[in-house]
């Protein structure tokens, strides 16, 4: 049974986590490859079990009930289509990240701070996906949070990383608290914590609505929904790059899994306003995330903000799924949900690829600030082209996979006029527009990221002396890019594989994708729309081939005489090139005043002074300013007021206890 193999592999990962400190303490020099190799092997078993359960049908799925954990609940585990799909997403990322880390981990200065927590983190994520009772789910969730927190704190000498760890810990505890409340509501006073009994019990509409809000707060804070995303751009860059890839590419998907599991599977019948909330949050996250990403100079932070954007896109898909599900439009709901999960899978691929690229840049050039990079395409050619592939995929350009999933979500948006609720009929096209805007901005963002980092000339000595990284890293990236390309050109089998999932969640499935003609995919029906990645790929290849032939055969044949061109750089200083800030300026001009209250202030020198005038740009993070700072102020104020309680006499403490006791008794007396 795949689930038994999966659970044994999780136990194996836990064993690796226990063995790692021993290896590190003994100063064994093969500790790093051993730990990552073992993690790779166990993750591969998990990946296989997930694939078997997803493709093999119910024969390979199943439940396991172990007598561990809380005595009257035990530990339930289940492998159903939804769990299997996310098991595949998690463990494909884990396999590739472990492979990458075999090479990347050699650069780690303090392996003792990373090696024990890495397999533990993998085990935690897998356990979340396999758990089938609330207690196990929450324990696994918290285990995942804490082990990833330890990984964020791996380089704790940096004050910025410590702050990131602190913010992350706060947000993670908040999120778990919200999940705890949500499951408490679902389990009800009888304490039916197993998912099967939650599913069987009916839930009042107000209760389900409250659960939705709590899940948006709990799972949303882990997934990075605006405005709960603040920890994400701090914590993801702080971890070592293969862990960043896992956190951004995979852990956010585990959060999406938690949301889908509760909202689509456990919470009962959705109401139509659920879709409104989810769509607004998703669209807001998509646009704000990418706007932040365009302005970032730190490569890894840019990628983290782009994760916020992609999670927003996934949530738009889920919101559409909810909208169609409440109105019994099973086919449309299946399309939206399938597209959302497919986008989650795609994002895990190209975000890991991009984070690996950033990790290569970090080890090769020792720099994350893209203003200090440049010209790396000459020094790290393979990294550069692989990173370019990731940029194309994440910018949703055909024939890569990002295009397919975003196109499918847009197809689902086009069905929205059939909905009966006017609010949704207006809101869904609006969120479609936001999605299109986010996609366009993402393209700009990644043109900038790739161009400034890899093209033109080096802007610092670090970039000048950069070196290509080892084979492990490059091969891991090739594997990811290959899967991106396959999923983009032949998406049909992927969509077919997800049909049991949508069958389970919304009671419908997308039409079976025919492999012929032209390997096209059909969202609803052939007469309505279809897309063939293979044809697009074929035309791109042919057009390029033709253009190259034409240019080589005809354009340069004639001898021309012309003045020599200085390549547009009359001044040799690298400062004359396009910089990251100058590239982002148009976007900043358009959106800055609204989204960031951007202000450019001008300081003129005093009369007679020959110093240059200075322009100072100030950007404000409004979410931080209007949500988190007042909150922080309130907490500080309350703490200051309550500080008096530390300096009371014994008698006053006793009086407080006494007063509390009497108060509670009075409450009991008046209520009973």
């Amino acid at each position, binding site marked *: 049974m795949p689930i038994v193999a999966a659970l044994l592999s999780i136990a194996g990962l836990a064993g690796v986590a226990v063995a790692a400190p021993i290896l590190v303490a003994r100063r064994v020099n093969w500790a790093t490859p051993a730990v990552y190799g073992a993690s790779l092997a166990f993750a591969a078993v998990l990946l296989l079990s997930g694939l078997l359960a997803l493709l093999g049908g119910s024969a390979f799925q199943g439940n396991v009930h172990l007598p561990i954990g809380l005595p009257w609940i035990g530990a339930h585990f289940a492998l159903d289509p939804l769990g299997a799909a996310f098991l595949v997403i998690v463990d494909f990322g884990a396999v590739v990240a472990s492979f990458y880390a075999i090479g990347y981990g050699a650069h780690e200065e303090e392996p003792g701070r990373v090696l024990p927590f890495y397999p533990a983190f993998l085990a935690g994520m897998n356990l979340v996906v396999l758990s089938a009772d609330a207690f196990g789910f929450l324990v696994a969730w918290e285990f995942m949070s804490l082990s990833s927190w330890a990984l964020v704190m791996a380089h704790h000498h940096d004050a910025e990383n410590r702050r990131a760890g602190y913010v992350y810990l706060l947000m993670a505890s908040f999120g778990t608290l919200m999940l705890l409340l949500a499951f408490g509501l679902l389990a009800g006073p009888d304490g039916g914590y197993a998912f099967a009994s939650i599913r069987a019990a009916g839930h009042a509409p107000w209760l389900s609505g409250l659960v939705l809000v709590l899940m948006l707060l709990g799972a949303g804070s882990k997934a990075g929904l605006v405005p709960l995303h603040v920890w994400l751009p701090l914590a993801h860059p702080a971890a070592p790059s293969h862990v960043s890839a896992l956190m951004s590419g995979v852990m956010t998907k585990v959060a999406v899994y938690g949301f889908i599991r509760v909202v689509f599977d456990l919470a009962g019948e959705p109401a139509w306003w659920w879709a409104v909330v989810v769509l607004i949050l998703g669209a807001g996250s998509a646009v704000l995330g990418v706007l932040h990403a365009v302005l970032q100079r730190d490569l890894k932070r840019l990628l983290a903000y782009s994760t916020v954007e992609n999670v927003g896109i996934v949530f738009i898909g889920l919101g559409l799924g909810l909208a169609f599900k409440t109105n019994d439009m099973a086919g449309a709901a299946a399309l939206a949900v399938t597209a959302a999960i497919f986008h989650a899978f795609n994002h895990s691929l190209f975000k890991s690829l991009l984070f690996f690229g950033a990790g290569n840049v970090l080890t090769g050039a020792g720099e994350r600030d893209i203003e200090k990079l440049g010209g790396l395409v000459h020094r790290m050619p393979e990294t550069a082209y692989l990173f370019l592939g990731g940029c194309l995929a994440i910018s949703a350009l055909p024939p890569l996979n990002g295009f397919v999933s975003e196109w499918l979500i847009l197809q689902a948006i086009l069905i929205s006029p059939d909905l009966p609720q006017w609010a949704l009929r207006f809101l869904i096209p609006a969120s479609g527009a936001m999605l299109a805007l986010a996609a366009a901005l993402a393209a700009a963002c990644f043109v900038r990221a790739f161009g400034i980092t890899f093209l033109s000339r080096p802007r610092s000595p670090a970039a000048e002396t950069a070196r290509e990284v080892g084979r492990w890293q490059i091969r891991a990236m090739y594997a990811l890019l290959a899967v991106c390309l396959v999923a983009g050109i032949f998406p049909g089998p992927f969509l077919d594989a997800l049909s049991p999932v949508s069958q389970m969640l919304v009671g419908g499935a997308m039409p079976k994708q025919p492999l012929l003609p032209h390997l096209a995919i059909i969202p609803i029906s052939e007469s309505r729309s279809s897309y063939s990645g293979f044809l697009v790929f074929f035309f791109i290849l042919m057009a390029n081939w033709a253009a190259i032939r034409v240019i080589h055969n005809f354009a340069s044949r004639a001898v021309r005489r012309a003045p020599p061109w200085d390549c547009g750089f009359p001044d040799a200083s690298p400062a004359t090139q396009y910089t990251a800030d100058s590239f982002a300026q148009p976007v900043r001009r358009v959106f800055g005043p609204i989204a960031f209250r951007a202000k450019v202030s001008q300081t003129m020198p005093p009369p007679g002074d020959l110093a240059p005038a200075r322009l100072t740009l100030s950007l404000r993070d409004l979410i931080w300013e209007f949500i988190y700072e007042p909150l922080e102020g309130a907490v500080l104020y309350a703490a200051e007021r309550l500080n008096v309680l530390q*300096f009371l006499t*014994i*008698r006053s403490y006793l009086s407080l206890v006494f007063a509390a006791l009497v108060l509670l*008794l009075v409450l009991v007396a008046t209520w*009973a």
Partner: protein
Amino acid sequence: MERFSLDAAHLLAGGMVLVSFMMLYQNRILGLLNVFAAHAVVLSLSVAWQAYIQSAPHLFVTAAIALILKAIIIPVALHHMVVRLGVHRDIETVGGIGPTMLMGIGLVALSMVVMLPAAAEADPIAREDLALALSVILLGLLMMVTRQNAISQIVGFMSLENGLVLAATGARGMPLVVEISVAFSVLVAFIVIGVFLFRIRERFDTIDTQALDDFREGRE
């Protein structure tokens, strides 16, 4: 007979509440110790009566422990301690006997209101017993809160513990082991507090807990 045993149990438990009020009223330390001894005697009587009517012989052990430990050893030891500390002539300044008594009456009323409906299904002995025991506990706490002197606070604590024992015997089926270990823990607490008192006295020349506070560091 049934009726009589019930009434007698209530009488004895009610007597404990009454003695608790006497402790609240008493503002001389030696007097307070005597009243505390009386409290323990009433407790042991009450427990012995419960043992008789429930025909649970192990409760006689509990009664004996209460009598020997709380009615004799601890009051005598406290008596010596008070004399050695030289505070036997002190008259405590309590924050107004009248209001304290009124609060005590309010607490008894509260515990009746809480316990009688809550334990409605229990048998009558346990029901009234629990309500009275809760009153004794609350009165003990009130005593700890309203007194300045450390010795009176200890006595308040001990009377609170008496209330716990009363509650435990009323509800049938508390094992003897628990009873004995509670008695031991009280003894240990008593020893620790006694040692502590002498240390405080050595340091600060007083056992008024208000004075401890004046020496505290970091006070604003």
